[in-house]
């Protein structure tokens, strides 16, 4: 059931809170990278964009969602638990013995289609799925979430070329454009801009959105899913790495920062 704007925003607050709590228990998780795609994940799963069935994660008629930036998707855990893909107790055991939720996720987790975290694989795998679905005449849509730092991997551009040439219009690449990789802002490493123009040159439909406006993200994804115009789609979601944590926002090294338990407690007191 799709939520309205207010409900979606409330869901985003809950997911951020749960994500911070996971990080408090498992400080090796990548917190900054996991906070930037919260609105994207919430829009997909609560905004009525994706077709899915938590009781049947491999339901053939589901839309496919590949988390190519696997390391930065700890915020996906509370969503999957909330929707019933696995018991909520798993959230207490992230990275712990006997748990299924790793510091970086694997496809042993119900709801994860593939194993990622090694970057640059998701877009090509998504192209294979989109091609396979088309040949089989299935109407499912394939979404893949990648980071902007991930776009440095050459394999991404092999897939981008391929999707454009194959006119994979059942494919949406969502770029969590949080402007930073591990050691610096992308504009300081190798500037990726103009990002949209690069995709357009390969025959993609390009949409850009404020990646923290959950309703705008939802509307853009919904529109992409319904637009079968012979072109693959990219949604450049302009986000902030470490969104919601002032110390991380604007820090070029936020990727490798860990929040202390006291910091997390203080954040949660101020932004319940």
């Amino acid at each position, binding site marked *: 059931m799709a939520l309205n704007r207010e409900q979606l925003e409330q869901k985003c607050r809950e997911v951020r809170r749960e994500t911070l709590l996971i990080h408090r228990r498992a400080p090796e998780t990548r917190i900054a990278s996991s906070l930037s795609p919260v609105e994207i994940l919430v829009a997909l799963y609560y905004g009525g964009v994706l077709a899915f069935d938590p009781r049947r994660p491999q339901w053939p008629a589901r839309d496919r969602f590949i988390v190519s930036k696997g390391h930065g998707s700890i915020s996906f855990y509370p969503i999957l638990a909330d929707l019933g893909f696995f018991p909520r107790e798993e959230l207490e055991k992230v990275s712990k013995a006997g748990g299924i939720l790793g510091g970086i996720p694997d496809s042993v987790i119900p709801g994860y289609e593939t194993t990622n975290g090694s970057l640059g*694989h998701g877009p090509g795998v998504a*192209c294979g799925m*989109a091609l396979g679905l088309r040949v089989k005449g299935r109407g499912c849509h394939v979404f893949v979430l990648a980071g902007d730092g991930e776009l440095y991997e050459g394999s991404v551009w092999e897939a981008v070329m391929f999707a454009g040439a194959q006119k994979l219009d059942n494919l949406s690449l969502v770029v969590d454009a949080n402007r930073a990789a591990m050691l610096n802002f992308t504009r300081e490493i190798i500037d990726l801009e103009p990002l949209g123009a690069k995709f357009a040159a390969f025959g993609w439909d390009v949409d850009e959105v404020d990646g923290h406006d959950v309703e705008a993200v939802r509307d853009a994804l919904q529109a992409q899913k319904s637009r079968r115009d012979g072109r693959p789609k990219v949604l450049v979601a302009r986000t902030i790495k470490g969104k919601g944590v002032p110390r991380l926002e604007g820090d070029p090294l936020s990727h490798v920062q860990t929040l202390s338990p006291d910091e997390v407690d203080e954040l949660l007191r101020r932004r319940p």
Partner: protein
Amino acid sequence: MTVPTMAVAMRDAFIREIHTRMMERSDIFFLSADFGSPRLDALRLEFPDRFVNVGIAEQNLINLSLGLALEGFCVFAYAIAPFITMRCFEQIRVDLAIHAQIRAINVNLIGVGAGMSYDVSGPTHHCLEDLSIMRTLPHLEIHSPSDAVAAVAMLDGALGRPVPKYFRLDGKALPNLAASLAPGDLARGFRILREGRMLMLATGFMAHRALAVAALLPAGLLGVIDLLSLRPVDEAALAEALAPAEAVFTLEEAFLGAGGLDAFTAGLLRGAGLDRPLQCCGVEQRYRFELGGREILHEAIGLSAAALAARVLAAAR
């Protein structure tokens, strides 16, 4: 039994058989990294929806293969052997080896140009590392047929087992060593081509070379075992076959001491508690730039039939 001696390119025979199966089954997909064969032209003309040339992009070739396999296709991914194994090794590791432990995926990598079969193309196209590096990956089957008959016979298994596999095919047209495989040879992963007091375990093109070596030696001295697959292999059966040998030789067109056939055999003998003299023949760890063809390369690196026969004779004395 009449043994056909006409040379047949393994890839053409293999692709012809895949083409036939594609007519019967709608779940077979063929991807090529802009690599062809005369026989592939017919396939791609007939199946424009299930054949895609992905361009010279081996990383994407593997990523696409996983995506298609997850959608239920049996995928054949086709490229030049050194590139489909080494350019995209990490894709094979993450997409195929890791996923194979979690999901059923039927991806069949076809690498053409095993060993030095692209002789005059030089070190970039010589494929002397693939056996070693593919052995490092769990769950990946490794098949190294020595002729077209063996390659074609492997196709049933390729279609039937939803696991990742690597088929290492020679780039040259080779004569068939037998008109057909004996029952059980494929399942065991090897075939005995010739009996002898000492045994040479060879794979791929080198099975032909081993037979040539044996022919230069006194009758009954050197037997030849053709290792059709490095994984899976019925190791107990192979150990049993090697047990009577006074000495064991390995022969591979691959780097020595890098974890290939030599390490495979040493491990097998050790595991079976067989204390046999073992001599490993292959390519010393240097890249070769000599021109003139495979025979000249083999002369230069001590893998000519005459040089190998001398080694066996020396061991026999």
